[in-house]
């Protein structure tokens, strides 16, 4: 299986502190992967690098079948290349309605001229209806996103991510602030999405990770500590020492 995303030998320092240390990571085109690791392990920073927010000091990041280096692309270009991201803290446009938020995210031309000429089509409306039904926000289309509950905002952000139709989704702590039922629903959704796309999920909740039932990468001090099935990595003594054994 050829990889969709290939990160190799990446290093990032903030004022001399190595947040990412010679990290190598790859994921296939239709694969679900969980990343776990203690606070400050560099999980979010890893996502920052892939999405172009942070530029690495060294190493390479390649994306696609005929690999293009993401290091030369801007955040917007990387997003257009097919990488979507959900942030750790839910970030939706609070002053705009659920419908507007989703319209912004819908896959379409992104240039100012194209957006000026854009008119909503029946297909777009159907897509928005389907997405909101999928995440249980069908009744809230006309509500401003700022009035939604924390969990609903998480769902809206996931729906926006799907609306972009990315080939790779980076999902940072999706279950934070969700009830148990919501978490289970999120798991199902992520597993379902990963049938056709690559999905990387960062999560601290071990039950959540177990339900994802996928390959797990453990990060520690900016490098991969262990990789494999959840059972495999949880048996690893170093993983127990630095992460599992703490609490």
């Amino acid at each position: 299986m050829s990889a969709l995303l290939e990160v190799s030998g990446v290093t990032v320092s903030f004022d001399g502190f190595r947040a990412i240390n010679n990290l190598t990571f790859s994921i296939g085109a239709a694969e679900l992967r969980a990343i776990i690791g203690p606070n400050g392990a560099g999980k979010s920073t890893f996502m920052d690098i892939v999405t172009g927010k942070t530029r690495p000091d060294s190493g390479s990041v390649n994306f696609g079948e005929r690999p293009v280096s993401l290091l030369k692309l801007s955040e917007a270009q990387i997003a257009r290349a097919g990488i979507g991201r959900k942030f750790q803290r839910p970030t939706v446009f609070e002053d705009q309605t659920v419908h507007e938020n989703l319209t912004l995210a819908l896959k379409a031309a992104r240039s100012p001229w194209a957006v000026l000429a854009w008119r909503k089509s029946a297909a777009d409306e159907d897509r928005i209806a389907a997405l909101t039904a999928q995440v249980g926000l069908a009744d809230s289309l006309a509500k401003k996103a700022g009035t939604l509950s924390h969990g609903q905002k998480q769902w809206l952000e996931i729906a926006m991510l799907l609306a972009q139709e990315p080939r790779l989704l980076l999902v940072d702590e999706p279950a934070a602030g969700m009830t148990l039922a919501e978490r289970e629903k999120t798991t199902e959704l992520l597993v379902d999405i990963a049938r056709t796309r690559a999905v990387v999920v960062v999560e601290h909740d071990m039950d959540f990770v177990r339900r994802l039932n996928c390959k797990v990468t453990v990060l520690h001090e900016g490098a991969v500590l262990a990789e494999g099935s959840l059972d495999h990595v949880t048996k690893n003594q170093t993983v127990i020492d630095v992460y599992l054994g703490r609490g």
Partner: protein
Amino acid sequence: MTHPRHRSALIFLASLAIFTIAVTIAAQFGLVSTSFVKTLGKTLCLCLAALAMDLIWGYAGILSLGHMAFFALGGYMVGMWLMYARTEEIVIASMSNGGLPATPEEISQGIATQIFGVVGASDLPAIWSFANSLPLQLALVVAVPGLLALIFGWLAFRSRVTGVYLSILTQAMTLALALYLFQNDSGLRGNNGLSGLQNLPGVTAGQDAVSLWFFWASAAALALTYVGLHAIVSGKFGSVIRAIRDDEARVRFLGYSVEGYKLFVFTLTAVICAFAGALYYPQAGIINPAELAPIASIYLAVWVAVGGRGRLYGAVIGAALVSLLSSWFTGGRVPSVDLGIGTINWVDWWLVLLGLTFVCVTLFSPKGIGGLFDRFAGVHAPDRKGAPLGPDDGSLQEKEAQE
């Protein structure tokens, strides 16, 4: 059936139409003076500039404090043609008294001496090359401010200058331009500026008629721009720029080029301001580099803030109200108030009053005057417990978002 979202635009257009007709009738019956018609026409142009300011600041969150530079540049561009063509008429008329018809060289020499005598020059500078052609000079109304905005914006946004730094940069831009134009060898008559712009070449009608023409043109420009901007802000483009205002990093991760949108809005609003200036200065009759003073652009922001940013009619109300009050107070016709310990002379105290009003609006009605209209519409406001609606400096504050 009209969508409720378009109701404010329809009400605005109807009010503007009634106002225009009322002023026209009043002028016909001599109820308002020609100079007052000009004041109202100029006010409409300022409202037009305020619309542009609202688009860039209220909607896109970019507090530009340099947009009156584009307004003045538009005025200079149209002023060059007005002054040239008018002087040409005078020169030809005076030369034809001599008997022999004047040669083109003599005429252009005569024009140059007439226009540039005050700054001790007698040649037309190269930038006046197109001044003999109205279409070309009108093209420059768009091209010169548009190009300046494009270059300035490209440099600023590409380096991701935002917030207060961008505001300072735009102040520096308008100041630098003003200082340059103050020089006699800038080619635009230094601190004399361009004058006699109220005289339209080839027009024999009196100022009472001309003032109405410009008043109508200003009203039409305001109406058309309002409709155009309303269409823009209520569509997906408006949604993108409001998203940029509240959280530009998030917009980048959706695949939109934030810098491209900022540059687009900056240039578009610069051109709108230039248009407004091109209509304003023929009514004012004179333009000089003082019009590009940094304070002029700050006023523009104050009007929009007082009117309520992020709603187009708010910008118009703010600009009309504050600029009309300002010309009333500074016109010396308001009786002074004798307080016993001293007198309040409004010419001096108007700015203090304006400053206090600004502070009061910010404190007690953050949505500005336009926000008062929203009391009638019962839309739920996001409950943010006092937090702004996004992490960015320009993002809408909670109180502004309540509709």
